[in-house]
């Protein structure tokens, strides 16, 4: 399958949505709304639920299925309020020692007037910083489009997985083609060059595994269960350290000229 075909599948409006994952993988979901700073952003959906009887915090991008839903949740493009809401839920999870499970599916953070006005950049940066230091297990699954900082803003996790037909990239292929070749029509070519499929990311060492979609909910359930089992062996401080090391050194082999690199002040 070509990269652009994957892109189109990842964006397919009939693909399962966050609400489907929550309904099929968890019970007793209690939705939490609002950033408690002045706004509710429907493009982030989240709350507390049970995963095989265990309380967890679950959240993710919400695209919606019908046109009305799409509009209400801004096609899954959060503003700063969405990222702050996500962080509020995650900090609460940390307080009550609940694992955090996030589902990533966004064309990107919203490039809008108000989003800029209220600090889109700062909201995302703050999530990246704060997530890196959480003392509970964090598991992220890219289910559809994982595009740009808008995706990463809820995906700084101990374990990051991708569904086999999901994509994860620095920007949309259209945006990439537009920036580098000044021609957004070359998106098919861009999708190929960008290396944005699950297989590519696994090879880059950016994700921990690829989830088969044949029996999608069962496969995700299995992956979350095994990841939790592994992460439960770590103490709160070890969980934080594990995540820090993961993001600090994921590209170690590419930036170190030798294994015994030492800083030299000349």
């Amino acid at each position: 399958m070509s990269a652009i075909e994957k892109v189109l599948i990842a964006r397919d409006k009939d693909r399962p949505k966050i609400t489907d994952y929550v309904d099929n993988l968890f019970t007793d979901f209690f939705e939490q709304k609002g950033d408690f700073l002045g706004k509710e952003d429907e493009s982030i959906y989240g709350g507390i639920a049970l995963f095989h009887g265990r309380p967890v915090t679950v959240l993710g991008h919400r695209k919606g299925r019908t046109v009305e839903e799409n509009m209400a949740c801004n096609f899954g493009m959060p503003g700063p309020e969405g990222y702050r809401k996500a962080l509020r839920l995650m900090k609460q999870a940390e307080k009550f020692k609940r694992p955090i499970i996030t589902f990533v599916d966004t064309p990107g953070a919203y490039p809008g007037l108000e989003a800029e006005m209220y600090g889109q950049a700062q909201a995302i940066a703050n999530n990246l910083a704060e997530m890196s230091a959480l003392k509970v297990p964090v598991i992220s699954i890219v289910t559809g489009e994982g595009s740009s900082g808008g995706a990463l803003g809820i995906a700084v996790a101990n374990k990051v997985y991708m569904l086999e037909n999901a994509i994860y990239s620095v920007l949309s292929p259209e945006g990439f083609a537009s920036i580098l070749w000044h021609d957004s029509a070359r998106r098919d070519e861009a999708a190929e060059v960008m290396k944005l499929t699950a297989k590519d990311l696994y090879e880059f060492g950016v994700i921990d595994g690829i989830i088969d979609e044949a029996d999608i909910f069962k496969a995700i359930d299995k992956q979350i269960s095994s990841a939790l089992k592994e992460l439960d062996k770590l103490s709160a401080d070890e969980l934080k350290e594990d995540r820090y090391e993961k993001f600090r050194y994921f590209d170690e082999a590419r930036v170190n000229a030798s294994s015994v690199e030492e800083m030299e002040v000349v």
Partner: protein
Amino acid sequence: MTSVVDKRKNKFNRYKDLRENPTELLEPAIKPVKEYDAFDRIKDIADEGTFKEFEFNFPETNPLEFEGYVEKKEALRKENNCHDAIIAGECEIGKMPCVLAVMNKKFMMASMGMELGETFCRALEYAGEKRLPFIVFTASGGARMQEGILSLMQMAKTSAVVKRFKDEGGLYITVLTHPTTGGVSASFATLGDITLAEPKALIGFAGPRVIEQTIGQKLPEGFQRAEFLQEHGFVDAIVRREDMKEMLEKILMLHKNVYEGR
């Protein structure tokens, strides 16, 4: 009719504007011959003769095997006397030792790839180890597209290192200069304990053109400029270039208790 005096005054004002708002687009006739760059910045900010640049030995990298990327970097290295788009080192500012990092937008718009992210992190970690304040002058077009997902991940990497540095009690100062956008604005640029900005610097997550296309309307004047950000609560102070050193000295001095008996 404009008098000769008025004309001269206008001309004078334009020069004054150039000094005060160096980021503004100027008429070609009065455009400075040489653009104020990262090296000029270091010269203006660090106490004379104190800046010692960190030298890291980075291997060449082209993870997407992107056509022309390596050649482009090689050419820019020769032109700009730097290995990538950030220059970092140890120096003194007002006799206060600190680590200073300056982004160089002449190098691929100071977009953030692995080398830039790693340089930033190592410089910050050095400051952490030596218990030194850290100052970064940001300017960037965002993520280094040519490095794909690995450039995106630099956002998480740098933010994690900033968080650790700050949690350990380090003073982290960012100075946002024109333009600071995309992946850099949405990571280490907006995490400062103290956030300064230069007048009229463009600071934002999405570029103005993308926003205009998305919302289908013209953006108001001054949108995403430093003054706009300050008005909305994201900038401590707007500081003119000629006042920058003095301001940094003052801020470092105000944190002297943190670094006493270091």
